[in-house]
């Protein structure tokens, strides 16, 4: 069984379709909490929860401040807040300046998760059209977490994963199907 304590997934333009497919086979007893950090999608936040609800057995829930991430849950971010993690792993919300024109910023969440979870973090970056996520992923590597980037050739919008592949030198560059398999294996 995996020793990872958290999976954090960042994505922007073109990532929604991938995310909707990632957890279709995942069961309720999946051992690792999953947190999604998505830039504002064309669908409303409420709708995102509903969309995800139909695509997985995991409980889909919006992050609340001071809440502890639990296995069996798939967390989405509230609109217009950064998501951070305390040393004990609990969530903190933060309404400070946008980073990379984004709130939530993927860099902010990745970096904070890296500091809180260290080597027990799995960090995945998907399709997107800006450079958010790469600096955060570099921090995850420094803290010896596992880093995975969607293969830019497989991504609908390659810019974001390409930045990360070039600058963060992730442990794995995988297609969305391979990412799905990687996650499924964690349940074994």
């Amino acid at each position: 069984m995996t020793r990872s304590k958290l999976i954090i997934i960042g994505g922007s333009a073109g990532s929604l379709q991938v995310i909707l497919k990632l957890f279709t086979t995942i069961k309720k007893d999946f051992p690792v909490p999953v947190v999604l950090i998505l830039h504002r999608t064309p669908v409303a936040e409420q709708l995102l929860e509903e969309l995800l609800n139909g695509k997985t057995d995991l409980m889909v829930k919006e992050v609340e401040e001071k809440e502890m991430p639990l296995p069996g849950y798939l967390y989405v971010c509230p609109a217009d807040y950064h998501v951070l993690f305390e040393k004990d792993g609990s969530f903190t919300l933060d309404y400070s300046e946008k980073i990379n024109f984004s709130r939530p910023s993927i860099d902010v969440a990745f970096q904070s998760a890296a500091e809180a979870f260290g080597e027990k973090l799995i960090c995945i970056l998907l399709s997107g059209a800006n450079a958010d996520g790469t600096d955060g992923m570099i921090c995850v590597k420094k803290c010896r977490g596992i880093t995975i980037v969607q293969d830019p050739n497989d991504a609908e919008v390659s810019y974001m994963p390409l930045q990360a592949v070039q600058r963060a030198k992730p442990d794995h560059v995988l297609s969305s199907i391979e990412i799905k398999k990687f996650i499924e294996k964690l349940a074994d």
Partner: protein
Amino acid sequence: MDRLEQALINEEEMEMLLDDMYQQYGYDFTGYSRASLVRRIRRLIINDKLPSFAELRYRIRNEPKYFAHAIEEISVNVTEMLRDPAFYKSIIEKVIPVLATYPFIRIWHAGCATGEEVYSMAILLQEAGLLERSLIYGTDINPAALEKARQGIFPVGYMQQYSRNYIAAGGRNDFSAYYTANYHLAKFDESLSHKMIFSTHNLVTDSSFNSFQLIFCRNVMIYFDKKLQDRVLGVFDNSLEQFGFLALGSKESLRFSPIADRYKQIEKEKIWRKTS
């Protein structure tokens, strides 16, 4: 040192810095959410191009002026006018009619930063014909932010967004009538600011200073740990008249707090009414 080296601040260093700030200046940040605070400190080190964490600590210990600057940078001053229009719609429809029954109205914006929400409220009170018998207090730990609030001057570039918020909240006038635009700045009318009092107040250490019918504290307590949140709610409870209102940020709640059972939430908005 590159950006990411600085990125990792260890806990012991952080404790020492917080201890210095408390011992020397009386500012206690130990009850702040650590994750956010580390981000703010890191941002300060990067923006000021300090070579190390030790240098930051040295300057804070030895230069009161630098400490004042650090306070400005550490506190989060992000705010906007009429943020969450649905919330302000409830203020207009559910709260203001109750305020109208009082001969004299006192409102406190705790942690008001540069004052955008204070001006928002003044506009709504003026439109309800209540501003003349109201007094609005705006407090914050950051004196530089309060100075901006007193001036009532905001970047003109934000006005379009604020005007949209205003319309969405149910505003019926022309929002631009409330300010005078001059190059890139918008100065809000003094008929709004003459009913405002701005003053420093630290929610960590200071206590209640008046009684109010309405207290706003939005997106401030998310930066505090549970113990400090409970303390602050105690201060608000002591400062609210019976049947007064407490308005919080969209992700904040009275749930699980010691005062929760004496407050009743107004529908789904983040507004609670003191019942006893």
